[in-house]
């Protein structure tokens, strides 16, 4: 029985939160990796673009709520996401037209693109803060829990409860569907294959008659979908605050590089690598050992490898190590 308790404990405090957080990071990381692979620059405006998409979703959610439209047990935001995506894509295309396009035609070095994206970051941050303000926004409605910890305890008679939030299930489910669709698109359709070809060798792709304008357009469309959904899911699960989104850019970058930048599948797995290592290394295992070990061997301390204050530092350290020893990432991205 103690063993089952220990398993439930780990599921509740490590596995499910890490899986949720990892999914949110994974969507962002695929966004970064696609931009890097096809448009060839590190997009420092990632976090703020995600917050723009989330902002659009929140505004539509409020609008729907004021109309009295709802999805019952599901959050209204799910209904608003498609509209948020449209706004996000329009914003991205606008920025591409007025900012990035010029440098693409100039064939500027990636560093210059990165600098320009910092300009975009400032502007986007200003736009988001001017429209919705810098404060904390919660826009979740509907049923909060699928299983409550207490109900679970009563149901099974175990000491440990397992709480399952509906946002967690929604996040994981949406991520699986979205990512499978994306990989199907990239690997099976003609446009997807031509995107891959363009990413691998631009000149060769142009020679074989691939239209670069279309590739860029499709990339921004996919990026918009990923950014909005990733951001909205994070906002539903935690809360929306522009500053947090800006900070999230860092673990997202870490995930994309750990997975091998330019490699979407690597970025997808990289999100989970980062999330799991953050949570595994900062969890206090005292209770777990109390269940598993006989009483005489129980630990006195918290058995915590690092204090939770260093959560971000963990993912950055992993990234630094990967950058030094395997700059192409764990799952072989572009060799840079």
């Amino acid at each position: 029985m103690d063993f089952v308790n220990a398993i439930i404990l780990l599921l509740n405090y490590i596995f499910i939160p890490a899986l949720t957080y990892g999914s949110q990071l994974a969507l962002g990381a695929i966004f970064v990796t696609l931009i890097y692979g096809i448009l060839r620059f590190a997009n420092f405006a990632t976090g703020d673009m995600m917050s723009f998409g989330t902002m659009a979703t929140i505004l539509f959610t409020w609008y729907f709520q004021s109309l009295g439209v709802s999805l019952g047990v599901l959050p209204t935001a799910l209904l608003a996401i498609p509209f948020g995506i449209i706004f996000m894509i329009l914003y991205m295309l606008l920025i591409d037209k007025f900012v990035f396009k010029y440098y693409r035609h100039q064939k500027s070095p990636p560093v210059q693109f990165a600098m320009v994206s910092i300009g975009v970051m400032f502007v986007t941050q200003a736009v988001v803060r001017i429209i919705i303000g810098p404060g904390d926004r919660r826009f979740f409605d509907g049923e909060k829990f699928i299983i409550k910890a207490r109900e679970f305890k009563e149901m099974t008679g175990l000491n440990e409860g397992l709480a399952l939030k509906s946002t967690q299930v929604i996040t994981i489910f949406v991520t699986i569907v979205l990512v499978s669709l994306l990989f199907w698109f990239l690997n099976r359709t003609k446009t997807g294959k031509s995107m891959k070809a363009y990413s691998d060798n631009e000149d060769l792709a142009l020679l074989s008659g691939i239209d670069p304008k279309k590739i860029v357009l499709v990339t921004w469309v996919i990026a918009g979908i990923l950014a909005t959904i990733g951001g909205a899911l994070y906002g539903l699960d935690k809360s929306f605050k522009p500053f947090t989104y800006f900070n999230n850019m860092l673990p997202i970058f870490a995930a994309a590089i750990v997975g091998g930048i330019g490699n979407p599948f690597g970025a997808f797995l990289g999100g989970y690598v980062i999330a799991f290592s953050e949570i595994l290394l900062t969890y206090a295992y005292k209770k777990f050992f109390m269940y598993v070990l006989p009483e005489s061997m129980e630990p006195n301390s918290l058995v915590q490898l690092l204090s939770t204050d260093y959560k971000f530092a963990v993912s950055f350290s992993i990234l630094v190590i990967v950058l030094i020893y395997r700059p192409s990432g764990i799952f072989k991205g572009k060799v840079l």
Partner: protein
Amino acid sequence: MRKNLNVIAAYSIMMVLILMVGIFQSWNIALSIFNLCLISAVMTMGANIQWGYAGLINFGIMGYTALGGLAAVLISVDPVQEAWRAGGFDILMSLWLIVVMVLVIRFILKRFEKSKIRTYSIAAIIISGILLIRFSAEPGIEAIEAVDPAKTGFLGGFGLPIIFSWIVGALFAGGLAFIVGKVALGLRADYLAIATLLISEIVIAIIKHEDWLTRGVKNVIGLKRPAPYEVDLQTTDWFIKLVEKFNSGKLSVIENLADRQAALNQLVIEGSSVFVKLCYSGLFLVVVIILLILTQKALYSPWGRMMRAIRDNEEAANAMGKNVVKQHLLIFILGSAIVGIAGAMLVTQDGLFTPGSYRPMRYTFLIWVMVIVGGSGNNFGAILGGFVVWFLWIEAAPISLFLINFFTAGIPETNALKAHLIESVPYFRFLLMGLGLLFIMRYRPKGILPEKIEIK
């Protein structure tokens, strides 16, 4: 003279702008903008050495600034004897352990050939070392943090004059840059940017959460000053006389003696804070001028030419027998050390150290905007960038408030949109910075004062 005309013009305009703030808002505001402009100028000089001279991209400016600030705390605060007695021994033991660990790793690296076993054993040493240090330092840290946590709860510093910290801050930042450079300089430009950004976040995390060393988010306040205190000045005779002399015209108009005394008191209070700020301005100006002379000399020296050669064509410079890796490391350390000085100056001016306030927007990206806008590779440009961008950063809110009021003059105050816009005035500075950066990069990619190399 002719060729420097645009430099002189740009600086004159900048000075006029600051004087205008002094005349129309207040001299206090003008001087605090001027002081922070000077500090920003030091930061941009550091970033400019790295980016403009050598083409190295360093997004970790925040980390070096914070280390400079930490130096100011560690140098100037008096040591907390009780804390040293409570946990000093444990901390010193852990420091000793770290030294031993580094030496052992160095020994292994030198002694054995590269192999899988070597890599794994080094990893094992690091992990077991970290665990060991955690266990040995834990009781000490807890004891230190328990010593009067509301007031101290940390080891304190050396109790020296705070000016020394400007040098120590440079040493701290240079030391960190040495480690970071050894590790990350081989990376491609945009990877280097991301790596340095993340490393600076790690530095901030450590400073925020190691309370025994830095007091963490509890902040350190009331640091010593190199300048006199306002309260002391207000009771000093010569200062009061000085203020009286300066304002004799204004004061003589007032007939009533009591009124005149009240007016004088008011003037003394205002004057004292202006005087303190002027003291800081003087100190900062000295630093800026010394650094400017040094960097200009370096730029036109054989070493400066070599750096430009490395920046413009690494392979060719390498083929000519220049040690690119070593020079990159050197310039990375130099630039970061200058940023460290700025960090210490900043904390000196504020008189407080708040780890929570170090955010990448303000301390990394804004500095980069300054470098790009001012003109990378040109020291005068970098300093001008620091002045222009900081000035706009502060004055953006009043300017945008004025513009909003101007354009919505016909709309009543109660209009929701107008109220919302006025409420979000502080965020227009981001918009201004972003648009400024984008326009400069598009239409004047070399900055306001572009790099000009004359061959003498």
